[in-house]
């Protein structure tokens, strides 16, 4: 079975094979180490000219990639830990995201910034965060997150072929997961409907009349789908899970369609939930034509993520917290 990690490596490799303009930049990328999480392992051996291992200078790496992109190349940057994206914000917000629009569409900035986010590995407050919410709602920036329903390799290849800046969020725990096979294993009773081609949204339903719609993305889909089975077996609650590959900007339609049947919305993310992804989803649903939708959001508590496992488990959204939110919502 192929892991998400291997799929991502395959995606990168295929993009580099197919397009000589694709370059990789990042810290510690060279073999035999092959990057901190090994997504780039083997690639520097195959394409030694186009894998550029860098000093610890996240801001300049993204700036250099932006310049390369504006002159016709397609650089892919790896930021070793998602926590370090704070260092690249000026480059993303005041440079990469602006040039195409501000220069009246005379240039394009095809860069991808890949980075691992997420906790549950005991890495503590500065190596466990899910900071993708900082990139949501920036005009000109697309934020993507792979999942086990779609094809992570294809998602990454499409991001690399995109003419606009993309931030590509890879949850650390997703690397070891496998792609799900529809109709088998954990999704034996599930039916999957795909919306969109390039950056799809997937609706996974266990009944044609779902009682609750759960919006989530990335690794948290792994937790949500376990909870979906639990609530089904324990209380016969039928859920529909809406898995977003594109977090920003986003297409509301697949979720709205589900909510027109269920009228109960739960959003699940691993970042802190205040003013987060789920807040925007909830606001958009509240503004929509849908009436009588009950809403709950689940995310991390508003603390820095503690190092010790007991506290980390309390701060990040767990299976039991998600389950409780579902039961509260259905009461």
């Amino acid at each position, binding site marked *: 079975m192929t892991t998400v990690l291997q799929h991502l490596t395959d995606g990168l490799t295929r993009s580099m094979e197919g397009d000589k303009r694709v370059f990789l930049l990042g810290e510690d990328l060279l073999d035999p180490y092959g990057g901190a999480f090994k997504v780039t392992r083997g690639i520097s051996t195959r394409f030694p000219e186009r894998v550029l291992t860098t000093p610890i200078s996240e*801001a300049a790496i993204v700036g*250099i990639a*932006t310049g390369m992109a504006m002159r016709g190349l397609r650089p892919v940057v790896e930021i070793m830990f998602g926590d370090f994206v704070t260092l690249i914000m000026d480059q993303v917000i005041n440079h990469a995201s602006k040039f195409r629009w501000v220069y009246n569409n005379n240039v394009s900035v095809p860069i991808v910034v890949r980075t691992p986010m997420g906790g549950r590995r005991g890495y503590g407050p500065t190596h466990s965060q899910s900071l993708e919410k900082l990139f949501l709602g920036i005009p000109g920036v697309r934020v993507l997150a792979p999942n086990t329903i779609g094809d992570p390799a294809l998602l990454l290849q499409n991001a690399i072929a995109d003419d606009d800046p993309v931030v590509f969020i890879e949850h650390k725990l997703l690397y070891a997961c496998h792609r799900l096979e529809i109709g088998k294993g954990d999704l034996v009773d599930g039916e999957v409907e795909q919306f969109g081609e390039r950056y799809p949204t997937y609706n996974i339903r266990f009944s044609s009349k779902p009682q609750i719609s759960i919006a989530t993305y990335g690794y948290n889909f792994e937790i949500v789908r376990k909870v979906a089975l639990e609530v089904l077996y324990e209380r016969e609650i039928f859920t529909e899970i809406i898995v977003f590959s594109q977090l920003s900007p986003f297409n509301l339609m697949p979720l709205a369609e589900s909510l027109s049947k269920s009228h109960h919305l739960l959003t699940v993310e691993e970042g802190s939930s205040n003013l987060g992804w789920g807040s925007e989803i909830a606001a958009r649903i509240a503004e929509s034509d849908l009436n009588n939708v009950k809403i709950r959001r689940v995310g991390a508590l508003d603390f820095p993520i503690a190092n010790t496992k007991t506290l980390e488990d309390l701060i990040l959204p767990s299976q039991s917290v998600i389950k409780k939110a579902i039961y509260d919502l259905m009461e």
Partner: protein
Amino acid sequence: MEKNYSLYKQMLLIRRFEERLLEEFSSGKLAGTTHAYIGQEANAVGIFDVLHKDDIIFSNHRCHGHYLAYGGDPYLLAAEVMGKSTGLVGGRGGSQHIHLRNFYSNGIQGGIVPIATGMALAEKYIKSKRITLVFLGDGTLGQGIIYESFNFASLWNIPVLFVVENNRYAQTTPIEIAVAGNIPDRFKAFGINTWECNSTDVVKIREDSEQAVNFVRSNMQPAGLILQTYRFAAHSKGDDFRKPEEIASNKKSDPLLIHGNRLEKTDREMAESEITWIINEAFSRADQDPYPGSNNLPPILL
């Protein structure tokens, strides 16, 4: 002779363009802000005279002089600063954010330096022989990202020329209380060859620039070029707290005076009348152009 006249005329174009803009701002005809290049004209005109036509320039907030020396049409810039749809970038960028062919500018101090470095790296990969030039000021030396860029440029032999226009003030803050040590040492620390020019004479600046530019192009390595200069106008508008005596004394080295002495009076007058015509034409034409409206807003990216 011909050369001297052309250098003079280019500097005069910048001077009169910037004066006209300041006038329009103070009379309330223009909104927003501007950063005049008055006093620094010889820098851009001297350097650009030795660049190749397709070399790449990344300029900063004080970009009008750079743009005009690059050969940019004053009408397109006037229209852009006025916010007209016919402007360089359709009114989206305004004074600080412009683009024409291989000329780019942005309004963030230092943030453009890695981008120019990346552009130079891309050109090196495609073996275009183009070099990239990026403008910094003494104030920009406070930004950490420029040192990250120096490090990359030196490590990877990137053909980028870092031009520091040291006009001795970061907005209102004098260099003495903002820049420690000395500027060439900051390049030296990264093993980057550096040229320094302590003159406002366009001919001298041209000579020193030529050495730096040739070095970058023939060695495919980065270089620094430090130009000691002075701006006669405020940083932007109405934020000048320098002593009038200091400004007056620096005006004795006005690049237009220094270089103007090489021309006959009649030639200077001819240049003046030509430039007056060009500026009037640019501004009155731009003045009649339309502002962009909702039809200039494309659908939002999804």
